[in-house]
């Protein structure tokens, strides 16, 4: 049963040094506030998993939270590079970052396999390309029925999944609308899960019978954090702050400027609500 906690209590209780952590959200509903709380609490040695490590992982990597990154596309969408990620990979600042790199299809299948309780994911991919030579977790198996060579990657089974959703009801059930990404799979694949929400409602009310709902008993903790996905967006609540994504490029280019930004906007920030 998901229990309602403050963001501080939830991160303290669920995210430990050395954990494998997946903060998911595909452009939409990126759990920025929870990521910032992980930085504030000084977590170290995390293995971070995310299909699209954008600004939130750039910030966590630059702040020294991570020792390893498992990902499939690392950039600032529509803007350019992630300078903190590149500095860690190219110059080991603030520390070396091990990377395990995949394609989107591999990561999406690996989350689905984790949610399905399978040890690995099998799909049609990675034929004739260079990544399998650099990532020993990409292998090939022959289909026992047709002989076709299929790509195989281990299932993703994070210690903790962290996502942001629009609403919880009083029982702690969660409703997600809009671009869904891999959040449902990430929660169901993980041992523990933390969901931040825009608001708590008495009842979800009118909705499609096919609405995406995570029952309360699939989630470890819920924290109410209005605006918790900013500067990404929450469908029905607020739109993406594109100008911040553009501004981040300059902030992140320079180590000193980045550190000053983290100090001012994360370390000394008031918790939302």
């Amino acid at each position, binding site marked *: 049963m998901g229990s309602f906690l403050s963001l501080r209590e939830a991160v303290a209780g669920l995210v430990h040094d050395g954990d494998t952590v997946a903060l998911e959200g595909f452009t939409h509903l990126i759990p920025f506030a929870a990521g910032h709380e992980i930085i504030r609490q000084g977590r170290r040695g995390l293995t971070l998993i995310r299909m699209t490590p954008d600004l939130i992982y750039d910030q966590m990597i630059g702040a020294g939270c991570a020792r390893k990154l498992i990902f499939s596309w690392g950039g600032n969408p529509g803007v350019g*590079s992630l300078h903190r990620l590149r500095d860690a990979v190219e110059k080991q600042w603030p520390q070396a970052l091990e990377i395990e790199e995949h394609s*989107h299809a591999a990561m999406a299948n690996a989350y689905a396999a984790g949610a399905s309780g399978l040890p690995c994911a099998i799909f049609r*991919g990675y034929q004739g390309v260079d990544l399998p030579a650099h990532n020993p977790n990409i292998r090939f198996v022959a289909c026992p029925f047709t002989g076709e060579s299929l790509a195989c990657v281990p299932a993703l089974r994070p210690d903790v999944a962290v996502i942001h959703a629009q609403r919880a009801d009083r029982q702690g059930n969660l409703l997600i609308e809009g671009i869904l990404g891999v959040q449902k799979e990430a929660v169901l694949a993980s041992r523990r899960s933390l969901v931040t929400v825009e608001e708590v409602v008495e009842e979800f009310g009118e909705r499609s019978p096919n609405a995406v709902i995570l029952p309360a008993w699939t989630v470890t903790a819920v924290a109410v954090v209005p605006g918790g996905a900013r500067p990404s967006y929450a469908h029905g609540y607020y739109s993406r702050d594109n100008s911040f994504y553009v501004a981040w490029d300059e902030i992140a280019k320079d180590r000193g400027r980045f550190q000053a930004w983290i100090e001012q906007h994360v370390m000394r920030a008031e918790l939302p609500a």
Partner: protein
Amino acid sequence: MNYSAIEMMTIAAARALRNDDVCFVGIGLPSAACNLARLTHAPGVTLIYESGAIATRPNVLPLSIGDGELCETALTTVSVPEMFRYWLQGGRITVGFLGGAQVDRFGNLNSTVIGDYRRPKVRLPGAGGATEIAACCGRTFIVMRQHPRAFVPKLDFMTTLGHGPTGRERRALGIGTAGPALLVTDLCVLEPETECNEFVVTALHPGVSAEKVRENTGWEARFAKKVRESEPPSAHELETLRELHARTARAHGTAAGE
């Protein structure tokens, strides 16, 4: 009407899409071209973005692959695992539209690193959806600005298989889809030669010399027996593209897609 080389490239790429295509759209130049096609000669084209939006009709170009605009104007939006499993891998997509940092003469693409993988000179974003888009779509179109650092004799890293390092590997692997069928640049249009699969210039954009194409190609550029001149942009194409970019700039406060 005067027009820029980038406008010519986007319009030439848009013209390659048909009304009955189901198209998997990459962000940036492909997104501009695909939406231009939808707003001009191919109103029925089905545009699909990897964030899960199916049959989307965005009024402005998305800055990111998962912008709310894509979901709000889509027929339906599915999860990312469903998108890659049922729709892409399931063989429902006729055309994948891709870009990259480097392309070689056989339409293989690099969007991973410049230099050595473990000690890169430049770390690029990585594969994203491209590897399996190129494997699973019926065929792929590539749109890229042409210069010698991008059009290279040998990729630093094979992110996405085109026809293979010697043009034969894709067929040898038994991949059932056609692979790269068109490469549109700001200078010309290239298509793979039958059998050897090397991309050769089949059309020069108006005012572009063969010499200029040679100078901007990192391998020895070859030309088809008959090289056409690309039809210059029509007033309708140009106006539609410029209105799309103007709406996009107003919405984002920045020109997305370039």
